[in-house]
C-alpha cells in the first residue's frame, strides 16, 4: 500500500517537478524555498488535497505551517481526517 506521504510526494513530483527529484525531495524540505511551488501552485496543491482526501480546506488553513512540506501536509491531512483515523487517510 502506498503511504499517505508517498501519495503526496507522487503528486508533487508529477505535478510540479514533472518526474524530477523523485528521490531528492525530502519530507521536510520547504516547497516554497525550493521553488517547487510557484506563486499559483498552492491552488493546485489545495485542489489535489481536497479532491483526493475528500476534505474541505478553509482559507485560514492555507498557510505554510500546514502545507509547506510533504510531512506538514501529511500531518495536516491526518488531522483533518482525524475522525476517520490515520489509516483512512492512507487509504483514501
Amino acid at each position: 500500500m502506498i503511504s499517505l506521504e508517498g501519495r503526496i510526494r507522487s503528486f508533487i513530483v508529477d505535478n510540479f517537478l514533472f518526474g524530477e527529484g523523485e528521490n531528492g525531495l525530502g519530507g521536510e524540505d520547504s516547497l516554497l524555498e525550493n521553488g517547487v511551488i510557484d506563486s499559483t501552485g498552492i491552488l493546485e496543491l489545495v485542489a489535489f488535497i481536497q479532491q483526493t482526501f475528500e476534505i474541505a480546506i478553509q482559507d485560514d488553513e492555507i498557510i505554510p505551517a500546514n502545507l509547506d512540506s510533504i510531512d506538514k501536509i501529511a500531518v495536516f491531512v491526518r488531522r483533518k481526517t482525524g475522525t476517520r483515523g490515520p489509516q483512512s487517510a492512507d487509504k483514501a
Partner: protein
Amino acid sequence: MCGICGVLNLDSAPVDPKVVVQMAEMIRHRGPDENGVHTDGKIGLGHRRLSIIDVACGQQPMPNADGSLWISFNGEIFNYVELRRDLEQRGHRFRTHSDTEVILHLYEEEGEECVRHFNGQWAFAIWDKKKDKLFLSRDRLGVRPLFYTLKNKTFIFGSEIKAILAYPDVRREIDLIGLDQVFTFWCTLTPRTIFKDILELPPGHHLAVEAGRVRTWPYWQLNYPSQYEKLAEEDWAAKLLEVLTDATRIRLRSDVPVGAYLSGGLDSTVVTSIIRRHSDAKLKTFSMVFEDPEFDERKYQREAVSFLGTEHHEIGITGADIARVFPKVIWHAEKPILRSAPAPLYLLSSLVRNQGYKVVLSGEGADEILGGYDIFKEAKIRRFWGRKPESRLRPLLLQRLYPYLDNLRSQPQAYLTAFFHVGTKDLSNPLFSHLPRWELTSRIKGFFSKDVRTALHGYDALEEIGSSLPLPYGSWDDFTKSQYLEASCLFPGYILSSQGDRMGMAHSVEGRFPFLDHRVVDLARQIPPEFKMKVLNEKHILKQAAKELVPVSVMARSKQPYRAPDSKSFISDGKATEPYVEEMLAPARIRHCGAFDPLKVSKLYDKIKEGRVMGVKDNMALLGILSTQLIIFQFIESR
C-alpha cells in the same frame, strides 16, 4: 519600413548578385512593394521596400551623387524635413524627397556622427567606397532589428536572421546559452541570439567592417541622473505633453495614410487623442477583442473610440486563432517565446493591412519610460516591506498587485507573503526588482534535456546580466534601477521585437511610437521617480499631462498589461487543437530535437490534457517548449 541585407567579402572575392536577391527574398514580407540589389565587386547590398515616403522615387539601395556611397535603409527619420532644409542651406542638392537621401547627405558631412541628428527608428548599412568601409547603425532603443555574422572571410547582415540563413552554408545551430537566456529573461542578451554565431547589433550601436575587422561600439546609452532637477509636478507634466505632442506630430509624416492601435489603455488613447487634436483627417483605429473576458478590453476601447470619434476596426481573437497562426508567429519572431501574446498582434497587423494601411502609431514604450508596469510597484512594496521584515501590515500591500491575475489574486495572504518574501540581504542585490520574475521563469529550465543541462553547466544568466550593468547603475535610485532593467532587457528583446517589429512586418505594417522619440525618453529619465509612480499610482505624471485627452474611465482604470490566452489555446478538451502541437510535443520528436526531456514534457502535456490547474510556470513551459521545437523544425532542420 523595409528589409535590408548584404554581404561583404573580406577577401575581395566578388559577390554574386543572385545570392543577395535570395537573401532579400526571405524578408519580402518587410517590403513587398519593390526590391533592389546593388553589387560592386566584394560588396552586395539588398533591399525590400515598403513604400511610405516618396513612393515614386525612394528606391534602394540608393547612391549619393558621385556613387561613392550606397545605402540600404530600413526605418524612418522623422525629422528629415528639418534636416533636409539645413542641408540645402549648406549647398546640398537633392534628387528625391526621401528620408533615405537625407541620411546619405548627412553622412557625407559628418560620417558616423550623423546619427546624432536623427529622430527616428532605423537600421541601415552604408557602403563607403572611398574609405573601403561598411558602416551599420541601429536606432537608440532598438525599434528596428539588425543581425550579422562572420562566416570565414564573409560578413553577412540582414534585418532578420532568415536572410542571413539564406546565404549558402551558414551554420544553423541552436545557441544553448541563448536558449538559457530566453528561459530566464524571455529574450537573449544582445549580441547573442538563439542561433549560434549569428549576432544582433544592440540598440544604440554602430558597427563597422574596415581593414578586415568587425568592430561594434555604442553611440547612445540609457542613462539616468543620480540627482533630479527640482521642478513642480505641473511643470513636468506640461513639458511632457509638449514634447509628446511634437513626437506624435512628426510621426504622422507619411505619403500614405496613418492609423493607430487602440488597446483601451492609457498610452494608446493618449497618442490617438493627440493625433485627433492635430489632424483633421479621418483617423482609422484598430484593436483586438478576445472572446475570453479575462483578456478582453473592448469596453474601454469602445469608450475611447466614442470619446475620440475615430473610424474603428476590431478583430476578434480566439484561442483557436492563436494556435492556428502560432507556427507563423515563431517563423517571424525567430526566437522561442514564453507567452502567446505576439500571436494576436500578428493577427491585428493583418487587419490593418487588409484595411489598406501600412503605418500605425501606438503607445508602446510609455510603461518602460514612465513606470507603468506592476513589476515596478511590486519592487517598491517588497523594498518597503524588506526594510521592516517583521511588519504584518506592509505585506498586505501585496494585495494591490496584479489585479488582472485571477490565480494570484485568489491566493491567501499567507502564501502571497511567503512567495514575495524579502530578506534584508535581498535588498542589496542589484537585480532586486526582477529577481522574483527571473527566478520563477528559470524554473522552467528543469525541462531541458540532460545533455543541454550538461552543456550549460557552470553558466549563470543572472550572473551575466549582473556583470553587464553600466557603471553609474549603483548611483541610481531603486525605482530607476528597475526601470533600467526593464528598458534594457525585455523591452528591446521581446516587446519591441517579438511583439513589435516582427508581428507588424509579418504583414508589412510599420509601427511608430511617439513615447520612444528620444526627446521624450530624455525628458522621462529626468523626471523624478516619485512623479512617475506616486505612492502606488503608476504613470502618475502622464495622467497629469493627459487629463484632458482621455475619457475618465480609461484614466481611472488600473493598469492591465496586454496578455493573451496561453496553454488552453493549444490544448483543449483533452486534446491538441492543431495537429502540429501533437507532433511537436511527441516524445520521439522531443528526443530527436534534443533540447528537452521527453518524459517531463509528456507529464506536462498530460497535466494540461487532463485539465488540471495550470500555474504560471506551466504555461510558460508549454509555450517555451512548443516554440523552441518550432524554431528547430523551421530553421535548423528545414533548408
